């Protein structure tokens, strides 16, 4: 699904998840969110990091 949101924002990611993804070298655009409204959660990033 296209999750580009205009008005200056990307898909809704929390700052903590964004930092974690940067630390783990995970590209958030490749992660499928399991949270509310398809939101990417920490667990999703950890899972993606494991699979890398």
């Amino acid at each position, binding site marked *: 699904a296209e*999750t580009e949101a205009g008005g200056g924002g990307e898909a809704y990611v*929390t700052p*903590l998840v964004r930092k974690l993804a940067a630390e783990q070298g995970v590209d958030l655009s490749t992660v499928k969110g399991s949270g509310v409204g398809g939101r990417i959660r920490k667990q999703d990033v950890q899972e993606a990091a494991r699979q890398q």
Partner: protein
Amino acid sequence: MSESGGTFDLVVLGGGSGGYAAALRASELGMSVALIEKDKVGGTCLHRGCIPTKALLHSAEVAENARESETFGVRATFEGIDMDAVNKYKDKVVSGLYKGLSGLLKARQITVVQGEGKLTGTDQVTVDGTVYQGRTILLATGSVPKTLPGLELDGERIISSDDALKLDRVPESVVVLGGGVIGVEFASVWRSYGAEVTIVEALPHLVPAEDEASSKLLERAFRKRGIKSELGTPFESVKTTGDGVRVTLSNGTSHDAEMLLVAVGRGPVSEGLGYAEAGIRMERGFVQVDENLHTGVGNIYAVGDLIPTLQLAHVGFAEGIFVAEHIAGLNPPAIDYDGVPRVTYCEPEVASVGITSQTARERGYEITETSYNLAGNGKSQILQTQGAVKVVAEKDGPVLGVHMVGSRVGELVAESQLIYNWEALPAEVAQLIHPHPTQSEALGEAHLALAGKPLHVHD
């Protein structure tokens, strides 16, 4: 023959929190918008809800301060409440914000239509014979006070919150029917103003939607303030007497008072507006929507108190903004209603975000929790307030809920909201030391404790 009011990208029916927020955001996103309002833009919240009640609550705080000034070394004498002046102050705040909002709608070039609208097709609303065509329609007609079957309001002795906001005197005594948010807020105001107050609530607790720990703390605080509560006791009947009302409860006791405030909830404004006729699904008067707030009919959406989500102004804002962004194709994430902060502005305040311990257990979480007593918090001691900050977290996981009681804790829920919605671990909050001496430190201490590194914690 009906005249044409024009065609708009968005026609909003109802200019309250939900409706005007949608209108503002839609116009920002380049849409043409008509906002139809039969009374005053700002709706319940601005004219009969959030704002005027909080003005009363602040004047109640000033009254309490004056009454207890000696405790703080201030020599002052409390002489009473000047209800005319209270109303002037309250109306000034309301009219200032109303002017601001009206100006804003104008500045954003929203067509504000004054009049009562009715849905007359899946893409049109008619006001006094004039048709407003909308590529999208948003229903936001809000809610009004409810009562119980057989309990009739007379606006004098048996009143709703609408009437209570217009009183020209402080009642000597009041029975408040309903221990929810609106009931406890009015009870708190009147008590501070000097009235005898009794709250009657059928459920076993005040603010029953809150974590039980918060309800209990509020009940204790209200008891200390001399506010009586009849909990777990359904209302039976009321009759007017020579100088007031006599309220009888199901347990046979009766309470005499100057008036009865009926605060048993609010019902949606949805009858006779063409909703059902258009094929919109309704339940107990509430318009039913999917997670995109779409009604399932045409391009008709609905927001605010009209739909069965939390009846809060900021939920209306969030839903209004959501719909505007959704129809503009921005794909906003669905609203997580658990993540919406709730504040009850009585004295002491009650505030929460996320889920209660009980709900967490029901959802199968293994939880850890801590409750930080405000007795250990310097600023709360300075304010001489009692209460606690309770934090519920998933075991080895994020914070699931924050539940607080105490003066001014309503402002602390903003931080809690980020913690909950950003799924922070207690340790991530504990890493950041809060400013000293503030009440927010209590939130910090609770997270320090949950992270296994309590600082100013007494057992």
